[in-house]
């Protein structure tokens, strides 16, 4: 036996969409309190009443599995039992990265200013792809489970910010590196007009690509925010339901 709030424990282990989790916890919490009142009216000591109520009302492993099956997201239901959550998430991440890679490769291979921007644009692509995988992982969780718990949200947004800063750092390094090369070349021989302006164009394009990566990072962050905000509101309501009851002993 250990001391824990039964509803908090249920909240921790129940894997259903956030909104359904709130509704289930509210319903079970209300039944739990009503049963406690009935037991108290019958003269059952409080600690024993809490244990009895928890044993009777909180779903066991099998009942939890039934609940999780009943409250699946449409996509998860459509995928069926054959594909596990991990596989489905991996497939969605792979799809996001594949689409992103195709776009980046097309932009870098296509004859034009992006291809002329130099080796640092490839380094930027190397930063953009894991960033895309991180974002795709978050989206996959949202689409598959319609839930992203607080620690996952913090991790997702933290990594996202990290990748955006990495993109900016690589682009700045690229601009500085190219500028250094140019200045070294020009210090040896006076710059020719056309060479100078072509070099300025290349450096500016690289800077623009770097800022483009940052802008894409910010936009993808903005795309996630409405859903994350909804989860935060739901979790705030869940906290209120869970924190209403005192600690009691429950079976492991």
């Amino acid at each position, binding site marked *: 036996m250990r001391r824990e709030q039964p509803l908090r424990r249920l909240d921790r282990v129940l894997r259903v969409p956030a909104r359904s989790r709130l509704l289930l916890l509210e319903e079970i919490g209300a039944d739990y309190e009503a049963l406690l009142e009935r037991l108290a009216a019958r003269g059952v000591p409080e600690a024993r009443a809490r244990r009895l109520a928890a044993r009777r009302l909180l779903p066991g492993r099998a009942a939890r599995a039934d609940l999780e099956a009943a409250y699946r997201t449409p996509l998860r239901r459509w995928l069926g039992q054959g594909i596990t959550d991990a596989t489905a998430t991996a497939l969605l991440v792979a799809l996001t990265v594949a689409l992103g890679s195709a776009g980046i490769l097309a932009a870098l291979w296509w004859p034009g200013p992006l291809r002329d921007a130099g080796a640092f644009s490839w380094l930027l692509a190397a930063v953009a792809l894991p960033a895309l995988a991180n974002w795709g992982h978050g989206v996959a969780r949202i689409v598959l489970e319609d839930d992203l718990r607080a620690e996952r949200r913090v991790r997702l947004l933290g990594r996202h910010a990290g990748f955006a800063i990495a993109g900016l750092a690589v682009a700045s390094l690229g601009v500085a590196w190219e500028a250094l090369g140019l200045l070294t070349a020009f210090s040896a021989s006076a710059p020719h007009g056309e060479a100078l302006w072509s070099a300025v*164009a290349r450096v500016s394009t690289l800077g623009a690509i770097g*800022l483009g990566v940052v802008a894409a990072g910010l936009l993808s962050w*903005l795309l996630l925010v409405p859903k*994350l905000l909804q989860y*935060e*509101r739901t*979790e705030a309501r869940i906290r209120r339901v869970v924190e209403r009851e005192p600690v009691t002993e429950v079976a492991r």
Partner: protein
Amino acid sequence: MIGTIWTEMGFIRYPLAIAAVALALQTGLAIWRMRGPGEGDPAGLGRDTILVWGLLAATVGGIGTLVGIAQLSRAIAQAGAVSPGLVWGGLRLTMTSTVAGLILLAISAMAWLAIDYVRARRTRTAGTPRGPAQPGAIGTK
């Protein structure tokens, strides 16, 4: 003057205008959410979105300037000899988008700070104990 700057900014004025409108909407939404008991934005994520729109505007402004410089440089490289006045005039034009983006970032930062200040003040006021109830006051026996 604003009309001239708007025209001078070129294609980048449209994403900047979208960012400005989104920034205004997001600020309005954050103010509206503040009127509730705090459940509308429990961790301040909605409020932070104001800053993200400002950062996006500044980034887009920077992209506009860099793309403008790249286009200008290519045009000069192709044209050969160009008068310095034309070069500086072109550079001035490219800078307008960065200035506009940075103005939006400054506005977003000020809005974020103001909302954060009001929110903190309200939270403090709500959490301050009011002391023992006076005899005869409403709600006391």
